């Protein structure tokens, strides 16, 4: 049983010329193994900033608060240490890495996370299974990481990593965006499989409620202007579906509900 604990997290981003812009204004969130938390919010509200800050992207500066995984200070760790500690981020915009094949990349990552090289036989089998489960052509193993992948292929590749690397906590940043309905189903099944198999905690960031029909959240958090403004169960997402984010219009609702 693991716990990811985010306390009063405040984050700024450098916007050039030494100027910083505050984006997260104090985020509190606790995720336990086996739980699925959905974070929903409008464009630009800071959802990716939250995800990247937890993963350790150098672009963001933590100006206050804490993030711990089972009591360990995540913010003190380097990016790769965080991953080895059990954190995983499926990115909204996965990065192309020229010259590195998917198969080489995955084996290197698996070796790094486990601290030892996987047995070749079982690894080849696991890789094959993961690819076919996500309906990825086997030839993807020889392609360069994300190079020339379509949006949907990139997302499937992210979830394939989730399945193979078996993290304790997975943050999925808009894994649903850019997917057609079939791909959405395939990808959601992958997330559910990973959850069932490893009991990982999931932080599911999304703009739309569509994916929540396939991946059932236990908790829904509404994220506006850099903070959580409302929290509830799955019913909250249904209300958002109907009402949208307007009633949280920046300033007015946010401060009242959030504080």
């Amino acid at each position: 049983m693991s716990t990811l604990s985010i306390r009063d997290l405040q984050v700024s981003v450098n916007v050039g010329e030494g100027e910083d812009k505050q984006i997260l204004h104090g985020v509190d969130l606790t995720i336990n193994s086996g739980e699925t938390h959905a974070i929903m919010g409008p464009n630009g509200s800071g959802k990716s900033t939250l995800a990247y800050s937890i993963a350790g992207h150098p672009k963001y500066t933590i100006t206050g608060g804490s993030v711990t995984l089972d009591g360990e200070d995540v913010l003190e760790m380097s990016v790769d240490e965080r991953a080895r500690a059990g954190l995983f981020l499926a990115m909204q915009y996965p990065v192309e890495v020229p010259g590195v094949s998917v198969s080489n990349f995955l084996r290197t990552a698996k070796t790094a996370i486990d601290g030892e090289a996987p047995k070749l036989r079982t690894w080849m089998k696991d890789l094959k299974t993961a690819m076919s489960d996500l309906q990825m052509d086997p030839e993807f193993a020889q392609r360069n990481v994300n190079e020339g992948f379509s949006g949907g292929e990139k997302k499937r590749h992210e979830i394939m990593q989730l399945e193979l690397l078996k993290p304790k906590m997975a943050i999925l940043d808009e894994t649903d965006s850019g997917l057609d309905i079939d791909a959405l189903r395939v990808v959601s099944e992958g997330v559910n499989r990973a959850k069932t198999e490893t009991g990982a905690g999931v932080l599911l960031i999304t703009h739309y409620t569509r994916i929540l029909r396939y991946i059932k959240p236990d908790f829904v958090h509404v994220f506006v202007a850099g903070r959580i403004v409302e929290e509830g169960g799955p019913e909250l997402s249904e209300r958002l579906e109907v009402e949208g984010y307007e009633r949280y219009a920046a300033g007015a609702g946010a401060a009242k509900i959030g504080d």
Partner: protein
Amino acid sequence: MAGAVETTDEVASHLHPAGSFDVDDHPMPNGREEIWRFTPLRRLAGALDRQPTGAGAVDYRVEAPGEVAVASLAPGQAPRGTVLVPSDRAAAIASAETADALHVKVPAEVVVADPVAVTVQAGGGRSNGHVVLDVGPFAKVTLLLDHRGTGVHTANLEVVVGDGAEVTVVSVQDWDRDAVHLGQHEALVGRDASYRHIVVSLGGDVVRLNSNVRYAGTGGGADLYGLYFADAGQHLEHRLFVDHNAPHTRSHVDYKGALQGRDARTVWVGDVLIRKIAEQIETYEINRNLVLTDGAQADSVPNLEIETGEIVSAGHASATGRFDDEQLFYLQSRGITEEDARRLVVRGFFAGLLERIGIETVRDRLTEAIERRLAEVGV
């Protein structure tokens, strides 16, 4: 062996003026010439001054299986000079200043299993060289030309690929950091013959190689592969010219380079000329560069001149990618350390070329040279 196929159009590519053995026909460049515009002339350390080879400046060590004849050739003594006519001042000097060219001859129909290894050990100072690889019809051989040590070296390689022969040349530039090396490798590919030319440039302050191919008949194929790694301050320049002067010929050029550090510079110029007579040819050339850090610069100039539309295929591609913070973050976010991420990217980038080298000892030598060089520069 026949000379070049008679062509009805002797128009030379504008990038490749007719060569000459006379050094004075190649005036000292000022850097504005098309063929010299990328080269740092001030760092050539006298390579373009006509000078004899100094005492102890270079040692050619030849290891050749028994069926290969090793001798020497004077200027004008065939086949020396039948394939290579110096195309720039460096090649003209190398030719003029080499009284005895190394002649490596493989008789017709002889298949040589082990490579012929020519180790060029430079001991400092000015040196010139000329090697003639003379392969008879239907013979098969691999030549490893292994450059080590330091000095200012101008040298040529002239390759006669007999009809139906299979020839692989591997040229490793494993120089010490301060060497200067200018050279011309020229091959004439016989009817239905196949020629593979593999360049691996790792060391040296300035390395500039012209690798050229033309055909003596129909049905010949040429594969020109290259791999280079430039660290801070190094200049590695590879210029290729494939002259499709005969029908039904084939060429494939694939060069890959990685660069890192301040003022690391690589230049790749790939010229392919498809003459009017060269119908039904196939050609493809690609150059890929991976820039690992700021301050490094890769120039890549593919150039296809087509004088006939009656061809099977012709294409070229050039891509320069950066290894940047986002890629590093992505790999690290999967648990991979920064150091391993860099290693992964560079080795992955280079992996394909080594797999193409069939002879294990040659592959091991290249792997060793590449690994040592990468370790030296912290990759």
